[in-house]
Structure formats: structure tokens, C-alpha cells
């Protein structure tokens, strides 16, 4: 009987039922089999209000929406071009840096490709880069920066881990630690991709651009209201003056003032629409987060993580083999599922098992998000490929071919991040 219900839920999920309804259904069935009154669903959903950091999610998302509606992409592009354009492979580096920062701030990989792609693709072509190279670069840079402050996926991972730490014996997972741990892996990805760009361009060297001090000064002046933003976010969080939720509130207010009042990029009458749209996205994430908390409570009550751990341990002996398996599973999931859906479904299952293998929860978060990031560009279903295909009017197969070299580079970095925990942890523990 129970298996029929589980099968029906899986089938419904594949048929495109909203994931929150699937998870909710699974939790309800689970609690029913344990004779728990379903009021528990209300109680576990209300747990959402226990979290002191969760407020950062709507606020960072709102700030990100504002930035992507404003002309921030243009200014960021001009500034990084003035700063890095004169280096060998300069435009490629410009693309990588601009994409990474933009994605970190806006959180969505689709936004980066849509907003920055329109600017970067012609700029790259004009600088003399080949089209196939440019397409691959843009598609794979679209999700670069998911490990950088104030990335929302890392935040969501931290919230779930904090929730679970109440029931599991594990070291604490501070959001600040996650952000610190993400810095080196994210930089490593940027550097590796840059080196690959230089290598790929060695046969057809691109003429270097002259460095212009006046242009740099102009670009800096242009971005004067947005430049303090990283200082506010990073300084606020890492100095300990602000907790994450407060830093998010300051960021939201700051961006609001900068884009609406100082730059006047966003007219006041458009503001309610942007607010509503950003909160609809937040609602989608929070809803599956809430029901996933209910579901993970059921899993822990029912002892599923222990069973899963015992099962995996009989087949996978070493930590290394487990990590490899983890990478494969997460890559596939990252390609198939929305990043937030993957997080809320998989973290409650994987975290206890990973703890069993002696993996640090902070390190696991970095592995998780890094995998998801590459999942975005994994053929045949990675979301960035579709967004880029749609945005740049190219057949999807052409994008597969263009993106695969970049994906391989990122996979090498992923292996480094996964198997050398110190890369993530040396700033934290």
C-alpha cells in the first residue's frame, strides 16, 4: 500500500506536479504511517519562523532583483573592462569576473546570462574571440559565483543544516563560515577558467587592449554608488558587526536607495511590481523549504538517514568512494532539478550520511553548491544551456559542444574542492 503511494507521488512529480505538493504529500503519508496526527504539518511548517537567518533570503533576493532591473550590468561590465581589459585574454577575464559578481549578487544563473550575455557576447566578438568560444564561456559563467557572498543557495543550505543540527550530533554550521569557505573554491574556478581561456586562445592571439587611466576613472565614477556595496556586505558580515539577516536588510535598503533615488534607473512606479515578482520567487523557495522541513522531520523520526547510511556503508567503504558517488549523484540532480528543490530534498538525506563518513558539514555545503553550479551546464538538460540557447538564438547542440571544454575544467576544480577539504575549510576551522 505504502509503495503504491510512493510510486504515485514519483509519477506525479515526473508529470510536473508542483514539488512542494509532492514533498507535502510524502510527509503526510509518512506521518500517517507513524500514526502521528497531521497537525504536525502545521507545526513543522511554522518552524520556518524559528530561524533567525531566514529573513536574509527575501531581502537578498529583493536586492538582487533590483540590481538586475537596474543598469548595474552595464556599469559592472564597463568597470571590469577598464580594470582587466588590458591583460592577455583580458575580455575573457572581464566576462568571468563580471559574471561571478553579478551571479553572487542576483543569485540566479538565468539572470546573468540574460543581462550580461547581451553585453558580453558582442564585446567578446569585437575583441576578436571566436563565436564558439564565446558561447561556451558565457554559458558556463552564467552560474559562476554561486559560491560567493551573498549567494542565496549557500544560505539555504545553511538554514537546512542549522535546522538539522538540532537533531543530529554535528558541528555548527554558521552562514558566515559557509561564505568564508566558498571564497577560495570560487576564486579557484575563476582562475582555472581564465587559464583555460589563455590556453584555448594560444593559436589565435587576440590583440591586447590599451590600458586607459581615464576610462578606469570614468568607470569607477560611473559605478560610484554601487562600489561600496561589496564593502557593506562583506565588511558587515565578516567583521561581525552585522549578523547575516541584518546585512541583508542593509543591503536591500542600500540597493533600493542607490538604484531608485541616486541612479534613478528604476522609476518609483515600477517598484511595487519588482517587489512582488521578487517575493513570488521567494514564496516558491520558502514554500518548498517549509514543507521540506516537515519532510526532513519525518525522515529523522522514522530513522531513514540511519538506514540509508547503513545501506550505503555496506556498498561504499571509503570516504573517497562516497565523495565520488556524491559528486555523480549531485551532478545529475543539478542538471535535472531546480537548485533550491535539489537542496531542500537532498540535504536532509545526504547530510546525516556525510557526517557518518566524517565529512565536515561546511565542506559538504561547498561540494553541494559547486556540483549544482556545474549541473546547470551539464548536457543534455542543464538549465543554462537552454537559457543560453534561447537568449543567443543558437541550437542547443551547438551549445553542448561549445560548453563541454569549460565544463571539464570546472569538473577538475570540483574534484580539487571535493577531495582537498582544506581548500574550503582552512579559513573556517
Amino acid at each position, binding site marked *: 500500500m505504502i509503495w503504491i503511494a510512493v510510486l504515485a507521488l514519483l509519477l506525479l512529480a515526473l508529470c510536473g506536479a508542483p*514539488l*512542494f505538493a509532492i514533498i507535502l504529500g510524502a510527509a503526510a503519508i509518512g506521518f500517517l504511517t507513524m500514526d502521528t496526527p497531521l497537525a504536525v504539518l502545521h507545526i513543522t*511548517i511554522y518552524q520556518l519562523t524559528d530561524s533567525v537567518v531566514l529573513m536574509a533570503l*527575501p531581502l537578498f533576493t529583493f536586492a538582487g532583483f533590483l540590481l538586475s532591473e537596474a543598469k548595474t550590468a552595464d556599469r559592472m561590465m564597463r568597470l571590469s573592462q577598464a580594470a582587466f581589459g588590458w591583460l592577455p585574454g583580458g575580455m575573457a577575464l572581464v566576462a568571468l569576473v563580471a559574471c561571478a559578481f553579478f551571479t553572487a549578487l542576483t*543569485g540566479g544563473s538565468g539572470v546573468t546570462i540574460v543581462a550580461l550575455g547581451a553585453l558580453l557576447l558582442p564585446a567578446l566578438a569585437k575583441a576578436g574571440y571566436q563565436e564558439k568560444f564565446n558561447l561556451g564561456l558565457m554559458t558556463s559563467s552564467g552560474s559562476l559565483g554561486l559560491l560567493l557572498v551573498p549567494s542565496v543557495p549557500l544560505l539555504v543550505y545553511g538554514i537546512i543544516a542549522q535546522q538539522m543540527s538540532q537533531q543530529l550530533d554535528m558541528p555548527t554550521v554558521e552562514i558566515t563560515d559557509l561564505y568564508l569557505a566558498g571564497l577560495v573554491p570560487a576564486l579557484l574556478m575563476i582562475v582555472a577558467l581564465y587559464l583555460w581561456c589563455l590556453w584555448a586562445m594560444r593559436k589565435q592571439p587576440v590583440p591586447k587592449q590599451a590600458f586607459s587611466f581615464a576610462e578606469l576613472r570614468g568607470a569607477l565614477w560611473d559605478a560610484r554608488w554601487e562600489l561600496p556595496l561589496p564593502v557593506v556586505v562583506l565588511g558587515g558580515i565578516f567583521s561581525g558587526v552585522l549578523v547575516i539577516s541584518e546585512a541583508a536588510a542593509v543591503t536591500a*535598503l542600500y540597493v533600493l536607495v542607490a538604484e531608485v533615488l541616486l541612479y534613478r534607473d528604476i522609476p518609483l512606479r515600477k517598484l511595487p511590481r519588482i517587489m512582488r515578482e521578487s*517575493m513570488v520567487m521567494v*514564496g516558491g523557495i*520558502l514554500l518548498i523549504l517549509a514543507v521540506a522541513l516537515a519532510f526532513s522531520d519525518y525522515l529523522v523520526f522514522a530513522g531513514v538517514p540511519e538506514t540509508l547510511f547503513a545501506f550505503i556503508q555496506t556498498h561504499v567503504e571509503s570516504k573517497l568512494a562516497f565523495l565520488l558517488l556524491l559528486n555523480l549523484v549531485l551532478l545529475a540532480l543539478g542538471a535535472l532539478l531546480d*537548485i533550491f528543490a535539489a537542496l531542500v530534498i537532498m540535504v536532509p538525506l545526504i547530510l546525516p550520511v556525510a557526517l557518518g563518513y566524517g565529512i565536515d558539514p561546511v565542506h559538504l555545503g561547498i561540494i553541494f553548491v559547486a556540483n549544482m553550479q556545474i549541473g546547470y551546464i551539464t548536457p543534455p538538460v542543464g538549465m543554462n544551456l537552454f537559457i543560453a540557447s534561447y537568449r543567443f538564438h543558437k541550437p542547443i547542440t551547438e551549445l553542448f559542444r561549445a560548453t563541454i571544454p569549460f565544463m571539464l575544467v570546472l569538473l577538475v576544480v570540483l574534484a580539487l574542492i571535493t577531495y582537498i577539504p582544506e581548500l574550503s575549510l582552512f579559513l573556517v576551522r
Partner: protein
Amino acid sequence: MRRLARWLNHFEDGLIVLILLMMIGLAVYQIVLRNVFSSSLVWVEPLLQNAVLWIGLLGAMIASRRDEHIRIDLINTWLKPEARRWLAMVVDLFTCAVCAVVAWHSMLFLFEEMRQGGNAFPGVPSWMLQAMIPVGFSVISVRYLIMFFLDLLHLRPPMQEPHA
């Protein structure tokens, strides 16, 4: 009926914008209070934490208007429109039912809480803040029921993909 729906839409839109603004304002106000005047208001923290729940549910309610929830969409792309319509009807009914179950049990819990529950913070009983859960799930449930009938009558607007 249609007027009621439109009124509800405007109400939700207005409320969610208001809560977001309040959230930013109160949080920043609290930071200023703490760092400049080294004091704080006790009720701000729990209010903000509940505001997150409200925003989440309101956002989810708005997302249900056009079925913009996060989903895995594998099968639908391979199906003919007619089959897709039938499948959508099954999915809508399922979503409607699940939300109704939650709304129902949550309401029962709320009645209990109303009778014996305490205050979330002085002056505000905790059931008031929790009331958003049954309200939210009821509205989502009704919206999916409406979607089911729209499908039945071939009136449903095309599905929306959630955007990252």
C-alpha cells in the same frame, strides 16, 4: 466572483509589498537602535521572523495564480496537448487536495491554539500570526481547483515556467 478574485489579487500584492517594506525598515531601525542607542525593541525580532513566513506564503499564493511553482517538467514536453491537458487536470486536483488537507489540519490546530495559546509577544496572540498558514493553503487549494475547472473547460492559460 471575478471581482472578488481581482480584489483578492490586489490585496495580496499590496500586503506583500507592505510587509517587505516593513521588514527592511524595522530591521534597519533595529540595527540603528542597537549600535547607536544600545537598546532594542523586544517585539521586533519575533515579528520579523513571522513576517518571513507571511511573505513566503503570500508569495506562494501569488505564484499559484498562474501555476508558477518549482517543478520537474520532464514528461510534458514529450506529450501531445490533449494528453497534457488531462495530466494537468490530475496534477491540479492532487495539488488542490494536498493543500486542502494541510489547510484543514492547520485550522483545527489553530482553533486549539486560540482557546489555550499564549501570546507571541505582548498584545498579539500567537494564533494570529499562525493563521497565515491555513489561509495560505486554503487560497492555494482553491486556486488549483479553479485551474482544474479551467482545464476541464479548455480555458486554462498556458503554463508559466518559474524564472531563476
